[in-house]
């Protein structure tokens, strides 16, 4: 072996050592190489080997090695959103507009529900299903409305499956959904830190970090979380195209999902779909930090209570009576 060759080898080794390399980068590089070159390597890995095009395959590989949403820089968020938009186009021929817009400063969302006014029409439920791209096959719903006997305030005593003309005399109606607890037990239960409370008070799920263990569902005392047992089925023309990464984008199979106060709407100043759809004005939504907001008026002037307040979960969802 000539001395020249040895020198070359040394230089190469030195450059390799100097180059900063993390496990993630290494795997990423490996994955892209694998995606481009060897089809044999891809079989049996998470993305299915029958991916239609190399573009799709590449996108899915990159998606697989992305970070937790909270660790991403804005560029990385933009990149994953762009990938998901493209994948949606490739897979389902759907043009979605996905966003990853951050929380607004000085805003903490809160919700109030008037149990005197709700008459059980359930228009909130249909609006929610449509807005949040919920699975039509299993009839997934974030909101539940209970028909209650007078004097009872625990929804478990009510009828959550009524279907008859409403309102029925001498009954009242009480809705539940995710209460976005300030001390949310679900976020503590998650082993992969895939669910957390955003600075504006919304408890969100990173669907791509969720492993579907359902610990959070067990931890939630309000039955606020739902699990995707199958791939969500939504008629193409009914898909809500305006989406948020943490909100109503179509969840993959085996993921946990829940009400996000319609994050894709509320961070743009819009009311959640349930509030907008409510025909009786029983739902009040607004900024808890704004002393002039409607929600603050309700908290100040009405008789309010929260469900299972003694648990100390500090939900940001109040019930009130006229």
């Amino acid at each position, binding site marked *: 072996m000539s001395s020249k060759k040895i020198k070359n080898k040394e230089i190469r080794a030195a450059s390799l050592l100097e180059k900063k390399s993390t496990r993630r980068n290494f795997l990423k590089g490996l994955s892209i190489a694998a995606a481009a070159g060897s089809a044999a390597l891809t079989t049996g890995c998470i993305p299915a080997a029958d991916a239609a095009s190399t573009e799709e395959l590449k996108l899915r590989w990159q998606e697989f090695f992305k970070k937790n949403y909270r660790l991403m820089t804005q560029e990385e968020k933009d990149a994953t959103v762009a990938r998901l938009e493209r994948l949606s186009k490739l897979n389902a021929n759907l043009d979605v507009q996905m966003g990853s817009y951050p929380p607004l400063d000085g805003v903490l969302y*809160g919700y109030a529900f008037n149990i005197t006014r709700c008459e059980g029409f359930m228009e909130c439920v249909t609006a929610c299903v449509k807005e949040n791209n919920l699975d039509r096959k299993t009839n997934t719903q974030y909101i539940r409305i209970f028909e209650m006997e007078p004097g009872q305030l625990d929804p478990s005593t009510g009828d959550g499956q009524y279907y008859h*003309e409403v309102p029925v005399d001498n009954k009242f109606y009480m809705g539940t959904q995710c209460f976005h607890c*300030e001390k949310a037990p679900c976020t503590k239960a998650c082993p992969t830190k895939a669910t957390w409370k955003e600075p504006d008070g919304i408890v969100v799920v990173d669907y791509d970090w969720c492993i579907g263990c359902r610990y959070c569902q067990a931890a939630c005392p309000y039955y606020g979380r739902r699990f995707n047992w199958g791939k969500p089925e939504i008629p193409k023309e009914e898909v809500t195209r305006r989406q948020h990464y943490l909100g109503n984008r179509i969840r993959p199979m085996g993921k946990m999902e829940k009400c996000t106060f319609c994050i894709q709407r509320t961070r743009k100043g819009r009311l959640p779909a349930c509030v907008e759809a409510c025909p*009786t004005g029983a739902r009040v939504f607004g*900024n808890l*930090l704004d002393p002039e*907001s*409607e929600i603050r008026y*309700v908290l100040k002037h009405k008789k309010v209570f929260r469900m299972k307040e003694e648990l100390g979960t500090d939900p940001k969802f109040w019930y009130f009576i006229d």
Partner: protein
Amino acid sequence: MTKLNYSCLFLLFFVGLSHSLGAASEKSIVDEIKNAEDRFDNRSVPLVEQVVDEAVLAKEEYQGGSFRVLARKAKIERYKCSSCHTDKPVTAQQGALLTHGDIILEHGSEDQGLSCIDCHHPQDRDYLEDKKGRKIDFDHSYQLCGQCHFRQKRDWLGGAHGKRVVNWAGERTVYNCTTCHNPHSPRFEKRFPATYSVELD
């Protein structure tokens, strides 16, 4: 035995300590909300959706100042009323259709229901009239409704009754009384719910 007693005391002491510490650090979000007194500029939020329905500036004050209500006149099919109701007797070609025969009046108690001129101005048909004899514009019917339903009106002004249109941020625009309630029979009719629920897994 004494050893056990001591350990029991110790345990009690620690339980008590942790409890009092826990109670002290247990700050509810409610306190934080109560202390938030800074004004929030609702107009600083960039909106994607605008209120498309016609709205007018309300003649009353909301806790934060002025606000808008959805207009009513544009929704009344044959407004202006004075195009038929003039000084002369009304001659209607299609009587049944044009003499308000379709209106079912179910407002007020059963034995003492309201009549037309309890709310409508007896002379100037383009306006409403309250019990003090004030002329009230159709767009500002809350001024009329509020004379009996003052509790609802107070809640409506504050935001506990009725609802905002489209946005929680931006300029406050709310539904008028008559946007939701039919003034002639204001109670919502009974009907089937929009959907049904299945049992949770």
